[in-house]
């Protein structure tokens, strides 16, 4: 198994009195709440944390994209990936992901990813995402064309990386007379493409297609649904496309915190993980969360029926219980993650060692403990430690 360190780069210094006036940290929280001097310190600290993870033996470091919020400060993960390029040794740099279809001109991202791939000698992993619902408000992209633009931007980028230019790209949403990407990516035919998702049937079917076989990355959620979606990928590969998905096509991301004992880990992580799940994530209105057309009509109907919003009010014990996060002593966390792997067989595991307000000293301690006490054992896990995929069993578990 390959183990990565994933960072959201949250604005942990948020003045919590914001909640008196604003219901969410997304889209409409005034940027006067962002202090650039604190931002300067946080960015550099967070970059140091990822560099430390790479130095201590994580296989890769991961960044992602979100706009206009305090949850994650990387509107351009390309900037962070570039900053990481020089100081991460042989570690992979994974942009998980960039929202190519949110752009009017995805070619710029194709160029930038190719640059990073060349600079790093082929250490880039490209993630392609559609962006969360709010981002269709902040970027002015039409959610009714979200899926069309996503797949078309993908086609443009892959052709830009693999075909001799110049050629004309003649799409519905994108039309360019001259596509001739300089530089070409270092990796041939192109950097690996991953598809991070909160669990979307459309994304799973698209990623698993035999023309693509892209790694599907399930972002953090209760482990029961993680398992369901990861098995759905294997099931789609088996039943829809007639091939057996390799475990390299399966990835999972989870916040992880390790301390000397289980109780100490819970005590240390509690305020920070609860701040992330109860303050940074929740209370996004249904309208912002699911703009029209962003999801299939059937999925929208389900969400409207349940009046679903991310409500918050979660405790660390509850999140541990449901397997959203892995927290405890090194032995505990190693055992949890080994057991998860035994059930789900992901060949890529992304650990998020910093979350919410977790301060520098605890983040650093966590990264060190994970790197020395947990990651080596996880790296040794392979296909023989996985129970294997049984289509019939997966169907019965539904």
């Amino acid at each position, binding site marked *: 198994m390959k183990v990565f360190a994933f960072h959201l780069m949250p604005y942990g210094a948020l003045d919590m009195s914001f909640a008196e006036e604003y219901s969410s940290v997304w889209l409409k929280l005034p940027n006067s709440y962002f202090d650039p001097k604190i931002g300067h310190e946080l960015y550099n600290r967070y970059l140091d944390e990822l560099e430390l993870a790479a130095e201590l033996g994580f296989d890769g470091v991961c960044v992602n994209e979100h706009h206009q919020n305090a949850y994650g400060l990387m509107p351009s993960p390309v900037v962070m990936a570039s900053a990481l390029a020089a100081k991460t040794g042989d570690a992979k740099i994974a942009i998980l992901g960039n929202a190519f279809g949110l752009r009017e001109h995805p070619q710029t991202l194709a160029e930038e990813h190719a640059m990073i791939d060349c600079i790093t000698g082929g250490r880039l992993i490209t993630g392609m995402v559609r962006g969360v619902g709010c981002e*269709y*408000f902040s970027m*002015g*992209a*039409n*959610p*009714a*064309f979200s899926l069309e633009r996503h797949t078309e931007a993908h086609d443009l980028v892959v052709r830009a990386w693999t075909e001799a230019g110049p050629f004309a790209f003649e799409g*519905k949403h994108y039309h360019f007379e001259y596509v001739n990407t300089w530089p070409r990516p270092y990796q041939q035919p192109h950097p690996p493409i991953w598809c991070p998702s909160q669990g979307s049937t459309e994304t799973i079917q698209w990623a698993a297609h035999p023309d693509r076989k892209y790694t599907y990355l399930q972002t953090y959620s209760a482990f029961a649904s993680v398992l369901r979606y990861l098995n759905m990928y294997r099931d789609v590969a088996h039943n829809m496309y007639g091939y057996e998905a390799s475990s390299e096509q399966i990835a999972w991301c989870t916040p992880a915190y390790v301390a000397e004992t289980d109780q100490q880990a819970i005590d240390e992580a509690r305020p920070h993980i609860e701040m992330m799940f109860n303050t940074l994530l929740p209370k996004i*209105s*249904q*309208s*912002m969360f699911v*703009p*029209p*057309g962003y999801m299939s*009509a059937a999925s*929208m*109907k389900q969400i*409207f*029926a349940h009046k679903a919003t991310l409500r918050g009010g979660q405790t660390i014990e509850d999140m541990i219980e449901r397997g959203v996060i892995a927290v405890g002593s090194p032995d505990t966390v190693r055992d949890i993650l080994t057991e998860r792997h035994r059930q789900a067989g992901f060949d890529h595991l992304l650990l998020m060692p910093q979350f919410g307000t977790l301060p520098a000293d605890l983040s650093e301690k966590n990264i060190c403990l994970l790197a020395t006490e947990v990651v080596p054992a996880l790296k040794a896990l392979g296909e023989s430690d996985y129970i294997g995929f049984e289509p019939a069993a997966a169907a019965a578990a539904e």
Partner: protein
Amino acid sequence: MADCTESKIDIRGCKVHMRRGGSGEPALFLHGASGVAGWIPAFQSLAETYDLMVPDHPTYGRSDEPEWLDNMDDLAMFYLDLLDEMDLDGVHVIGNSLGGWLAMEIAVRSCIRIKSLTLIGSAGIRIKGKPITDIFMMDPDDLVREIFVDQTFADNILNMKLTEEQTDIQIRNRVATARLGWQPRLFNPNLRKWLHRIIVPTHVIWGDSDKIVDPVYAAELGKVIAGAQVTIIEQAGHLPHIEKPQPFVDAVTGFIQTKAA
């Protein structure tokens, strides 16, 4: 009494769900973002004077979802096709909100088959600093409340138990409206340049308390469309034809009788 009949009309392979009632000069009502709420009292009254047609736009309600429909240009061209295929002449076109925007887009392209234009709480242009309320951002229930002055209308809608089909249609309509009007929000930056091409008598009707498209837009459209008449309906929000049917119908028929007979 002129009740409506409902049928599917095939326009170049796209089946449109059409409500039609009454007799007289043809009138075409173009609905707004939330679709058609049935054969409402205002339609019933108008049908005493006109041959009133109320289609679901393609991709809305019970109409087809043609692959070619990507934007408001496509929809306007489609309605020119519809007028041709149905061979309608001297049509009184009445559009509400998004349907008002559509009515203007049709009229700037061709007024040949149009006898008069009525715009109710219309979207379609932008006055800088006075955006149309972001209907995509608002909570759907709050939006219903904002639409009406008389909250009993909102209560009735919010307390309605929707059938499976009605829920599906609600979602379809939301997606259809995003398709047409997400970016830029419910207007066409180029439309204002061509409004001089509207050469039929035009009537701008607005609720005095419209919280979705501010009544300043009534004055603006009255100014930029040559010879347009503005009527403000008292104690009405964004849907004066629903909230104040009789004053609305009187305004429509009165204008047509005096200006477009």
